């Protein structure tokens, strides 16, 4: 349909191109101006020209040039200049990559997703940069004498012995004793010193499903207060028959994910202030960790209440509803051993048998 229409328009417009125009074609040399400039002599006009050029060094500095001092002008200005009339506003909706009106990237200050910061240099970060990183680098140094060649390791994925014709084109087998391929630990050098990547605070509130949502609200506010960031809520994925929790129906948990500045402030606060005040606490169990460098431990409700943010207005929270939480510290270390080395250097005590 569209094609037939365009052809119709084309047919209508085509003959116009071939119609000969009325005006004569070719160069137009005729002057249309009617004054007498061409007939006047050039010497008469020279009096109007300035004797000194503007670009010559000896040109006179006028009053305006001498008084031009933009820095002083800006300093002496009492009020802010009015903003320019046009201000870019990011579109409210992202309508996909092919839409002509695309929102700017989140790093752009005009984006709706922009988060400014960081506003401070946390103490934990300073400690890490000044002492912990170099200590870890020293502790993890392995000296290899010149000419040392590391022994060849066998491939992590095993090949099939071609005992059967059906082995042809099969994908490689996983390692013996389980299909899980663990992370490879590379030797630690100056550019892969383990550091804290993010911290997840997670709290499972079973009463939110059993009683009312107030438990969830209080848990969210408490976690937000201690973490400086908004929390997300999650529905249960598994059914717990004894607590009457049905997957997909009950919103039972609260999670805050901390990165960057918030994370470091939270970590410092937890290590310096909260952990020493926990009663009868030996430290984090040495067997915690997911064997790829992330360490988890739990805080009881009475320990969460020790955070200064909750302590400062303790009356705001119903005392029974203050949640306990699980805190996962995600590090860039590849093994739990390295992660534990990092965290113990940053001040988290570990006890018991260290399991990697």
């Amino acid at each position, binding site marked *: 349909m569209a094609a037939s229409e365009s052809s119709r328009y084309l047919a209508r417009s085509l003959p116009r191109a071939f119609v000969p125009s009325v005006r004569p074609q070719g160069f137009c040399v005729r002057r249309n101006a009617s004054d007498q400039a061409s007939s006047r002599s050039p010497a008469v006009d020279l009096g109007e020209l300035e004797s000194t050029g503007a670009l010559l060094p000896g040109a006179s500095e006028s009053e305006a040039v001498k008084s031009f001092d933009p820095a002083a002008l800006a300093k002496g200005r009492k009020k802010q200049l009015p903003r320019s009339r046009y201000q870019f506003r990011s579109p409210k*909706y992202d309508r*996909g*990559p*092919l839409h002509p009106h695309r929102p700017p990237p989140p790093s752009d200050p005009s984006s709706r997703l922009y988060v400014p910061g960081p506003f401070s240099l946390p103490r934990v970060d300073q400690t890490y940069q000044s002492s912990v990183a170099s200590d870890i680098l020293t502790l*993890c140094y392995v000296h290899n004498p010149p000419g040392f060649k590391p022994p060849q390791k066998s491939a992590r994925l095993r090949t099939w012995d071609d005992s059967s014709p059906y082995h042809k084109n099969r994908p490689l087998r996983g390692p013996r004793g389980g299909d899980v391929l663990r992370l490879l630990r590379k030797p630690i050098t100056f550019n892969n010193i383990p550091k804290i990547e993010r911290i997840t605070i997670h709290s499972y509130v079973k009463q939110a499903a059993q009683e009312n949502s107030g438990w969830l609200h209080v848990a969210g506010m408490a976690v937000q207060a201690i973490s400086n*960031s908004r929390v997300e809520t999650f529905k249960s994925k598994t059914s717990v028959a004894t607590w009457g929790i049905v997957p997909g129906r009950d919103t039972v948990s609260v999670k805050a994910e901390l990165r960057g500045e918030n994370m470091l*402030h939270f970590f410092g606060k937890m290590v*310096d202030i909260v952990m020493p005040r926990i009663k009868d606490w030996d430290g984090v169990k040495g067997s915690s960790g997911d064997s790829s460098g992330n360490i988890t431990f739990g805080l009881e409700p009475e320990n969460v209440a020790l955070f200064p943010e909750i302590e400062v207005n303790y009356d705001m929270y119903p005392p029974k509803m203050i949640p306990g939480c699980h805190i996962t510290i995600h590090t860039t270390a590849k093994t739990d051993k390295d992660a534990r080395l990092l965290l113990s250097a940053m001040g988290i005590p570990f006890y018991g048998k260290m399991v*990697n």
Partner: protein
Amino acid sequence: MSLTTPLRRSAATTARVSTSTTFICSQCRHATLLRRPKRPYTFTQLITLSDGSTFTQRTTSPAPVYRSTRDTRNSLLWNPSSSKLLNIEDDEAGRLAAFRAKFGRSWDANTPVEGEEAKTPTDKKDGKQSEEEAAAEAAAAQEEEDNLLDLISSFGQDEHDGRSGKKK
């Protein structure tokens, strides 16, 4: 019409698989609302540790200064070698020990320290045996040092023999 139908169908299918992480350069019919990230208001707080050292931090607590009474500077877990924090009773006059000698029962009984017991018989033995023991001790110390060196040099070397040590 026969030309347009397959095009429409493909648009519908791409809209359904929009959750995948790969970048699909095709028309997405829905519009996602770009929510402004919400951040709680934070204050700068000066934290004073128990030994007088201070630092600032961003926190949701409106209190400008926080003084801590118990922190890493004065808790035993972080200062295991501090004699000040160690909970040892002051018994210079020996009155507590005398009390225990008189009235002490099972856990409170005034038993001599184990180290002293072990020392006394070795002193009585003849010189030759003590020399042998000293040599054995020196060998043990040397072995221990070697073990420590091994521990340092083999840090992180024995990883990845294929299976997790945790599952054993």
